[in-house]
């Protein structure tokens, strides 16, 4: 990491840490949503950006994390967020490991369709097995029943929502930072470099003796775990989990995050997820034709900003730098 990048990251972190001090409960909770979604995008992009595999079924892992929390609370009476994270990760990892075995044998559109079909199977299960999952009513995960930090922090009584948000924001921020750091290490490790080599030229990588299948499967697994973690952190914010989050449009949203921010960039999907979160909320608030608005924005973005917001900004910055150098 060069110095400039480190300085930028530190600056962003400081700004993020100061948000609750300046923004009210509403903006803070909105950003909390954004950060959880960013973790999902981070995981998704290990596959798309670094391995070259487009998953159209990442709703499965997001939903697996959320449902794991809800089921643990419902049937085992668990309240500890740390236990939820542990259990949810185990559950989404198991699912990603299983689905990964099936999916990574294929690439391109076949990979996309296979991931889509499997996520739809999961959606049907959540929808149909209502005596376990609550069907379309979903399962409730009220934050008032939650404890954080091994039971040290809980949120009973009046005005609990504001207290919950002001604490939970930092909780999510810490997990988010850990995730970003971990993913940074992963993509810059030999493992990450190998993934990129496979993405750029599968044949060459194979000739070099890389066991492509195994690398892709591992990437799939890690990707699923990150997205599952996002689902785990998201569910107390939403207060319940319904089959909607397993349905294919949710997968579409995750793809949207990455393309919006730019998936050839490490930070692109993170920015994309946060911006999409605002975009969606304000589009729905602005007009009953929010679908038209989102659709039009999507079309304009992919047509005119193929590198995404971060990618285009980086390009612009470089051009600017070159000019600066030329004039110097």
């Amino acid at each position, binding site marked *: 990491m060069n110095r400039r990048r480190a300085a930028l990251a530190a600056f962003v972190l400081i700004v993020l840490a100061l948000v609750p001090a300046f923004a009210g409960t509403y*903006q803070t909770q*909105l950003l909390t*949503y954004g950060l959880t979604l960013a973790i999902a995008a981070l995981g998704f992009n290990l596959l798309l950006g670094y391995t070259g595999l487009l998953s159209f079924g990442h709703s499965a892992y997001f939903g697996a994390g959320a449902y794991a929390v809800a089921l643990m609370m419902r049937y085992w009476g668990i309240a500890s967020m740390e236990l939820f994270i542990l259990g949810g990760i185990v559950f989404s990892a198991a699912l990603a490991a299983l689905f990964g075995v099936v999916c990574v044998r294929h690439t391109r559109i076949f990979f996309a369709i296979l991931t889509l079909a499997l996520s739809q199977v999961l959606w049907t299960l959540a929808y*149909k097995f209502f005596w376990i999952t609550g069907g*379309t009513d979903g399962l409730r995960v009220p934050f008032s029943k939650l404890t954080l930090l091994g039971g040290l922090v809980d949120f009973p009584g009046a005005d609990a929502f504001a207290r919950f948000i002001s604490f939970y924001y930092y909780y999510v921020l810490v997990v988010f930072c850990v995730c970003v750091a971990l993913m940074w290490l992963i993509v810059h490790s030999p493992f990450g470099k190998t993934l990129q080599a496979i993405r750029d030229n599968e044949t060459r990588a194979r000739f070099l003796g890389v066991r492509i299948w195994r690398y892709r499967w591992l990437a799939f697994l890690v990707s699923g775990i990150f997205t599952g973690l996002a689902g785990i952190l998201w569910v107390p914010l939403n*207060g*319940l989990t319904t089959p*909607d989050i397993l349905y294919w449009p949710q997968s579409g949203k995750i793809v949207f995050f990455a393309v919006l921010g730019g998936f050839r960039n490490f930070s692109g999907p993170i920015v994309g997820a946060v911006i999409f979160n605002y975009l969606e909320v304000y589009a729905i*608030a602005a007009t009953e034709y929010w679908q038209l608005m989102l659709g039009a924005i999507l079309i304009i973005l992919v047509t005119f900003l193929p590198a995404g917001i971060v990618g285009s900004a980086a390009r612009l910055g470089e051009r600017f730098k070159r000019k600066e150098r030329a004039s110097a």
Partner: protein
Amino acid sequence: MDKERGQERRSFLKQFGATLGAAGLGAAGLPHSANAAVKPKGNIPDKALKVGHITFLTGPAELLGGPGQRGHVLAQEEINAQGGLLGKRKIETIFADEAAGTDANVKELRRMKLSEGINLFTGVISSGNTPALGPVAEELKVLTLFNDGCTDFLFDKAVPNPKYTFRVTNIQSADGVTAAIGAATHWPKARRIASLQPDYSYGRNVFEHFVLAMGKLLPGTEVVSESWPKLGTTDFTSHITKILSAKPDVLVAGVWGGDYVAFYKQALRYGLFDKMKVATTLAFGGTPHAIGKDHPEGVLAGVHANYHFLYPSAERWPINKSFVERYYKRWKEYPSFESDGAYTALYLYKQAVEKANQLVGGWPDDDAIIAMLEGAGIDAPAGYLYVRADNHQGYKDAVTGLSKNLPGYDFPVWDAASIISIPIRSITAPPNWPKPGQGHNESTAAADWIKKTWPTAKAA
């Protein structure tokens, strides 16, 4: 046989204190108190009152949400034309689309309260959404009058001790029970039941309560066929053929909106309506003109939250006549039960504000308004509506009737002689009846109450 049938019919109706035919509403023609304006007490700010309203503005459920939105807007325009609430505060409404999904609705309600600072939240149609939004409304302390989203689970389980949340419409379990009473009254010989329900909690609720009530009313009934099409299904031919193959006496159908339109069009051409009686819970629930003149007569046409614009009749309940006229003038269409629900919700709030103002003066705080909402009664277009204090649930008489084509309308309406009006207390659990457990396999308090207290009619 006809005589025997007549006796059975009378005995059911007597059991529930229900009435048949247009003579429903007992205390007809109460003078409308709304016009008797009382001077507001104290200083009233003239700041606009902000209302949030989430309803289906897109997708197949727009057929329900659209009329709801129009009912809300009509009430708002009327109140504002009189100078606003307490003569001072004009109403402004922020609308948002319920079709964006449950999680987006949760976010939007928070935005409405925390960012826009709404004073009142209304709307919500899906019975999947009220149990999600009820707890959010409670935690945000935003006074909420749901106009639908009628699942029993809202106050049975999701918000068992409501403070800020109220609901104007009847509860869901009343749908199945009303359809059962209607079916048992009109077709007492029916024994073999087929069911066609949308595959989600509403459909399961209708099925459970219909079968339960039919078992009590007409002993020896059996379910011979079940179909559970997914919401949004348009091809029903395989379901229809399956139903035909079971040779039932009566079909109970909870499919609604565009699904129901597609269903009846296909069922008609497959001769389904000639081979069995059909009892629905929501056939006349959308915008009335969505159903065509080709819709068969003699179908028990449910209206879910118990309002169809021709009932109560103009002579007996002038409030309804005038509502329908104003609604038609404004929107060039007839109102649905959602229109009545949204319209009434806003007037219910207005009435509570006025009463609280008389007691405390100035603009009353939410606690005072809530106190006036609990146990409140109002003369709504649909009839008299009262809000139970124990569970914040609005109750009005349940109604259903047989479809008929009358001249003067481009769509079928109710046959006045066939309308059944049932006092709601006869078909729903009384106050303080134990709530079911939290498990989602636990049935409703109403089902439990029916099981334990309804006598089983003597076998015919």
